[in-house]
């Protein structure tokens, strides 16, 4: 029993679980198509990374490594920023195209070009509506 407890020290099983979370997120990212789900998958991958890092910090006898913990804190804040921006993009995309999925394939050669450098540029009707309001 003691031996088992030693083998399953937090410094080992948490990083292992973190690696599995990372792989799980990767799997979800490949398989799912809805953009919100993809953002969730990336967040789960990120949590996996943080779990590995904190698990590593907790290895050994002494107090946990404060540098690793500080890095994790930084990472969490970066993750929430990226998530917030990604979600804003998702909403924008849904507003323009009506879809919260990725448009497949390479750029369309016949799609209209919006050139912001031109005076009479015509952005999406959505944008115009916003301006009129």
């Amino acid at each position, binding site marked *: 029993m003691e031996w088992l407890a030693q083998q399953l020290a937090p410094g080992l099983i948490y990083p292992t679980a973190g690696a599995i979370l990372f*792989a799980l997120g990767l799997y979800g990212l490949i398989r799912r198509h809805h953009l919100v789900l993809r953002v969730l998958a990336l967040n789960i991958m990120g949590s996996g990374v943080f779990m590995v890092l904190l698990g590593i910090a907790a290895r050994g006898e002494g107090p946990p490594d*404060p540098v690793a*913990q500080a890095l994790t804190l930084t990472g969490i804040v970066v993750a929430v920023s990226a998530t917030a921006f990604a979600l804003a993009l998702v909403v924008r995309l849904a507003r323009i195209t*009506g879809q919260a999925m990725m448009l497949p394939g390479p750029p369309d050669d016949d799609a209209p070009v919006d050139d912001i450098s031109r005076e009479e540029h015509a952005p999406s009707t959505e944008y115009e509506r916003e301006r009129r309001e």
Partner: protein
Amino acid sequence: MSDLLLVVFDLVLLVGLLGVAWRCLASTDLFRAVVLFITFGLLLALAWVRLEAPDIALAEAAIGAGITGALLLVTLERLRSIAVERRRGRPDEPPDPAGADALLHALHDPPPPRRTFVPALTFALVVGGLMVTALWHQPDAVGLEPVVDEHMGVSGVDHPITAVLLNFRAYDTFLELAIVLIALLGAWSLGRYDRLPARPAPGPILPGTLRLLVPVAIVTGVYILWAGSHAPGGAFQAGAILGAAGILLVLARPRDLPMAPSTPLRLGLAAGVGLFLAIGIIGLFIGPGLLGYPPEWAYPLIIVIEVAATLSIALTLVALFIAGRPAGDDH
């Protein structure tokens, strides 16, 4: 015996975490996925406590589960209202014929095609397996704890994580504040603020609770900020709590938000990075180098930076929740 109990606890927690993550990524209903993700965040906070990282647990609960959860939920609500609008058509526009099942697509993701199953699974298994192998070969405890410990005396604070964040690796923390700001600039560049789709329940309950909770949140935020110099806590956790209070206030009145005038708002958003850099540049000229402080001044300077950072983070998180840029910005 207690060791064994802890191992059992660890295993149950980790299996639970993996199970929740799996269910989240496998669900076809987006709302369910988001709720499971928030649960996942709270369980993670528990895991961080178990790994002796109370600071991270606080941050995870407030930022990872709380703020991210709120962002996800409001995103679903926005997607829903976009789909509803498309289905109905607008006053000056005929209904979108393709929008008939837009609502379905907005908040549901059909089960993925079978043909990606084997390749995706194999790929994930290989990546995960290799990482686990690498981790199992690693030595015990090689971290920087002793180095940090040695320098705590000249860091200006008593809490090692705050010392790392705001002194030893202040550059990272500065850039982290910058990233929060850049995310907001990015969200603002996408378009103007439009009304939040959620309607608050009419009645006295919500305003009453807010009158109670917001002051409590402010007190808690300030306490956590102050505690950061000697105990778990600090600018990010405090900023997240204040930001959450702000989001609650925003949610309570989605119709006409009093948008702050552009320049003061932007000053507030950039106060954290601005002050941080200003102090950092002074450090460049008086000796310790860019983003350094003389040891005797370290404590007050760190506190000043943390207060500004807390304010900026709270404001930025609220602004990220609102998402569009304020109307006053375009005049």
